C-alpha cells in the first residue's frame, strides 16, 4: 500500500499572475502547516496553471468539495488548515464575493466570471498539474494523437479540421484546415511544423497561460498537425521573457519523450516526431511568420515577401505549417469530439471559442474563453464584472496594437473575425483592453502607435518612415501643437501604410489611429482646435487646478500629494495652487474632503 492516501487535493494556481501575487510563498506556508498538523500524507498540493481569474489571485481550490478561495495569503493558511482541511468548515471570508450583489460564492462554477465561459483551449488550465503528464492523460490526453496516428489517414485529419471550420487564432483568421492542406500538398522529403508562441501584444497573455497551464495539449496539437502534413520535426517559438512557460514546456517534452509520445515510431505507427523549443529574444515582428522562421534559422528577424508561403517554402526552404498556440490547443478537441461538435459552437463564419485577455479599467482582469458570437457587452459587463469605481465605459480595444478601438455603440457587436473587421478593428490574438471616461483616445492611439513604431523592423519604407511620421503628428497633437489638416494627413498616411507595407505589422499599425479618428474624431478636433483634452490626460492641454478659497477648510491634504509642490498654505486657512507649477495631474482632486478643488 502507498504511504499516502489523499482524501483532498488543494490546487494552487502557479501561473505567472498568481505567482506575482504570492502563490509560491503561499504554497510553502501550506506545506509547512500541513506537516505541522500531520496532514501531509492526506492532503495533496497540486500546482496548476492559470485559472484565468488573475484579478483575485492567488487562487486556491480545495477538493473534493471544490471550494474556491481567492486572494489567499500566507497568513490565511493556518486558518484554512485548521478550519477547512481538519474540521471541514469553509473559511467564508476567503470566498469570492460577487461585486454586484456582495453574495458569497463557494464554488467557482457558480461565479459569473466562470459561469458564462465555455472552455475548450483552456479546459485543463487550472484543473491539472501541468508538470504531470499523467494528469493530462487521466483527462483523455493524447487520445486524439493516438486516434489520428493509428486510425486515420492524413487527408482525413486535414478534412476534419477543415470541416470544423477552425480559423487561425493568432490574428489573421486564415482557415487552419486549408493551411494544412497546402502544406500537405507541397512536395518535399522534409517538412516542419511550428508553433508560434511569440506573443507580443501589450496586455495579452493567452498563449503564455496555455503553455504554462496545459503544455501537453500544444504538443498533442502539433503532433496531429505534423502527421497530417507529413512533417517529422517541429519547433515551438516562444519568447525568452516567458521563463515559466519554457520550463513547463521543456518538462512536458521530456515526459512525452519518455512515454514514447514524441520520438520514433509513436503508437507503433511508423510515424516519428521530434520537437524543439526555440527561444525568441522578444521582437514583436517575430510573431510574423516569415520573420519568425528567419529568427529560427539564426538570421535577423525580418519578414520576407509572400508568396512563396511557408506551406511551399518555409523553414530552411522546406514546406512548413505554422499555427498559433491557441489554434493547436483546439485540435485535440476537434479530433476527439468531431468536426460537427466544434462547428456547432460559435457563429457560421467563425466556429469554436476564443480566448481573450481582459485588461484595462475592468473589475475582473483575467483570461476568459467564450463562444464566438458572444457580444462585447457580455464579455465586459457579465464576465468582466463591468468597470471599476463606477466609471463610465468609453471604448474597448481589441486585437492589440494592430487592432482598433470601438465605442459604446458597438457593445452589442457579436465577436467574430468578420464583424470585428467590418467595424474597423480585428480579432488579433485576443487582447481586450477596456477604457473608461478617463482615457484620452488620442493618447491611446499614440501609445499603441509608439509601440508598433519602435517594433518596426525597418525593412520596408512605409512602415519604417510612415509610422514615424504618424507618431510625430500624434505627439504634436497631444502636445497642443496640432494643425489644421493633421487629421486628414493621418488618414492619408494610415491608408498608404496599410496598403503598401510588407508584413502584417505595418499593414495593421495604423489601425488604432484610424479607428479612433473614425469613432472619436471630436476628441482629435478638441485637441487641435480648442487646445483641450476632454479626458484631462494630455498634460499640455489641461488647465491647472484651482482651490475654491471659500470652500477650503485648510486641512492641507492636497499639498501632501502634490508631486511638484505647487500647493501651499497655512493649516486652517485656505490653500492655493500655483498655476505655473501645476502639471494638472489631478492627484489633489480626490484628496479634498470638501470637493473644493477643480480644474480652472
Amino acid at each position, binding site marked *: 500500500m502507498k504511504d499516502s492516501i489523499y482524501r483532498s487535493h488543494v490546487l494552487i494556481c502557479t501561473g505567472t499572475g498568481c505567482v506575482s501575487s504570492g502563490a509560491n510563498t503561499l504554497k510553502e506556508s501550506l506545506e509547512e502547516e500541513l506537516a505541522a498538523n500531520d496532514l501531509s500524507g492526506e492532503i495533496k498540493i497540486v500546482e496548476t496553471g492559470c485559472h484565468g481569474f488573475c484579478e483575485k489571485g492567488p487562487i486556491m481550490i480545495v477538493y473534493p468539495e471544490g471550494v474556491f478561495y481567492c486572494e489567499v495569503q500566507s497568513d490565511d493558511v493556518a486558518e484554512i488548515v485548521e478550519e477547512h482541511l481538519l474540521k*471541514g468548515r469553509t473559511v467564508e471570508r476567503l470566498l469570492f464575493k460577487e461585486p454586484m450583489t456582495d453574495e458569497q460564492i463557494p464554488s467557482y462554477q457558480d461565479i459569473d466570471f466562470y459561469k458564462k465561459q465555455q472552455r475548450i483551449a483552456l479546459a485543463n488550465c487550472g484543473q491539472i498539474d501541468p508538470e504531470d503528464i499523467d494528469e493530462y492523460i487521466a483527462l483523455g490526453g493524447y487520445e486524439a494523437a493516438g486516434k489520428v496516428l493509428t*486510425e486515420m489517414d492524413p487527408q482525413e485529419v486535414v478534412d476534419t479540421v477543415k470541416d470544423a471550420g477552425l480559423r487561425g487564432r493568432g490574428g489573421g483568421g486564415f482557415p487552419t484546415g486549408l493551411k494544412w492542406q497546402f502544406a500537405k500538398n507541397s512536395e518535399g522529403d522534409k517538412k516542419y511544423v511550428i508553433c508560434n508562441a511569440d506573443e507580443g501584444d501589450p496586455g495579452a497573455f493567452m498563449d503564455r497561460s496555455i503553455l504554462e497551464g496545459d503544455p501537453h495539449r500544444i504538443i498533442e496539437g502539433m503532433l496531429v498537425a505534423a502527421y497530417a502534413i507529413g512533417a517529422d520535426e517541429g519547433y515551438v517559438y516562444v519568447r525568452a521573457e516567458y521563463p515559466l512557460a519554457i520550463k513547463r514546456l521543456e518538462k512536458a517534452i521530456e515526459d512525452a519523450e519518455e512515454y*514514447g509520445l514524441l520520438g520514433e515510431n509513436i503508437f507503433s505507427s511508423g510515424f516519428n516526431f521530434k520537437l524543439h523549443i526555440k527561444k525568441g529574444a522578444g521582437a514583436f515582428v517575430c510573431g510574423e511568420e516569415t520573420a519568425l522562421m528567419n529568427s529560427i534559422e539564426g538570421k535577423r528577424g525580418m519578414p520576407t515577401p509572400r508568396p512563396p508561403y511557408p506551406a511551399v517554402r518555409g523553414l530552411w526552404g522546406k514546406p512548413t505549417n505554422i499555427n498559433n498556440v491557441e489554434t493547436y490547443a483546439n485540435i485535440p478537441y476537434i479530433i476527439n469530439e468531431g468536426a460537427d461538435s466544434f462547428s456547432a459552437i460559435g457563429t457560421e463564419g467563425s466556429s469554436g471559442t476564443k480566448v481573450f485577455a481582459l485588461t484595462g479599467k475592468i473589475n475582473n482582469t483575467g483570461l476568459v474563453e467564450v463562444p464566438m458570437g458572444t457580444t462585447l457587452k457580455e464579455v465586459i459587463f457579465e464576465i468582466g464584472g463591468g468597470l471599476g469605481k463606477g466609471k463610465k465605459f468609453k471604448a474597448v480595444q481589441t486585437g492589440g496594437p494592430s487592432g482598433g478601438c470601438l465605442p459604446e455603440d458597438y457593445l452589442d457587436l457579436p465577436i467574430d473575425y468578420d464583424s470585428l473587421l467590418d467595424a474597423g478593428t480585428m480579432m488579433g490574438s485576443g487582447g481586450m483592453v477596456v477604457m473608461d471616461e478617463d482615457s484620452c483616445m488620442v493618447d491611446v492611439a499614440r501609445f499603441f502607435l509608439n509601440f508598433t513604431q519602435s517594433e518596426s523592423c525597418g525593412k520596408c519604407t512605409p512602415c519604417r518612415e510612415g509610422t514615424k511620421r504618424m507618431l510625430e503628428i500624434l505627439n504634436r497633437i497631444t502636445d497642443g501643437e496640432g494643425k489644421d489638416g493633421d487629421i486628414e494627413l493621418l488618414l492619408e498616411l494610415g491608408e498608404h501604410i496599410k496598403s503598401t507595407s510588407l508584413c502584417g505589422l505595418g499593414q495593421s499599425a495604423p489601425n488604432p489611429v484610424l479607428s479612433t479618428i473614425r469613432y472619436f474624431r471630436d476628441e482629435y478636433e478638441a485637441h487641435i482646435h480648442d487646445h483641450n483634452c476632454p479626458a484631462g490626460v494630455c498634460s499640455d492641454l489641461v488647465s491647472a487646478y484651482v482651490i475654491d478659497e471659500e470652500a477650503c477648510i485648510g486641512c492641507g491634504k492636497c499639498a501632501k500629494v502634490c508631486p511638484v509642490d505647487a500647493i501651499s498654505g497655512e493649516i486652517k486657512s485656505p490653500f492655493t495652487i500655483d498655476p505655473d507649477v501645476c502639471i494638472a495631474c489631478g492627484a489633489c482632486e480626490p484628496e479634498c474632503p470638501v470637493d473644493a478643488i477643480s480644474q480652472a
Partner: protein
Amino acid sequence: MKSLAELKELRNKVQKEMKKRDQGTRAEIIVGMGTCGIAAGARDILKAVLAEIEKRDLDVRVTQTGCIGMCEKEPLIDVKLPGKEKITYGNLSEADVQKIITEHVVNGNIVSDLVIARHK
C-alpha cells in the same frame, strides 16, 4: 507508447487520483472533525476510512464536518449513498469503520446497531 490500448490502460490507472476533483454524484463519507470529534479520536477514524477505501479501491468522496452537537457520541461519521438517506453512525472504533464500509458502502446494508440518526 505502443498503442492506443496502452494509452487507455495508463489512463485508467492514473484516473483514480483525479476522481478526487470530480464534482459528480458519488458515495460520500463525512467525518465529524470538531474539537469534540478530534478529542474522541476522529483523526484515527478518518485515517481508517481512507485506508479502507484505498484497500477496497472504492470511489468515495471523504470530507469532514464540524461539531453537529452530538459530542457525547463522537467519533461520528455520516454515510450518504447517492439517492439514499444519510445515516449517522456514532461511538465508533476503527474496526467499526471497516464494518460500515464493507456492509453499508459496498453492499448497501445499514449497520443498524451503530446507527444513531437517520436523515431523510
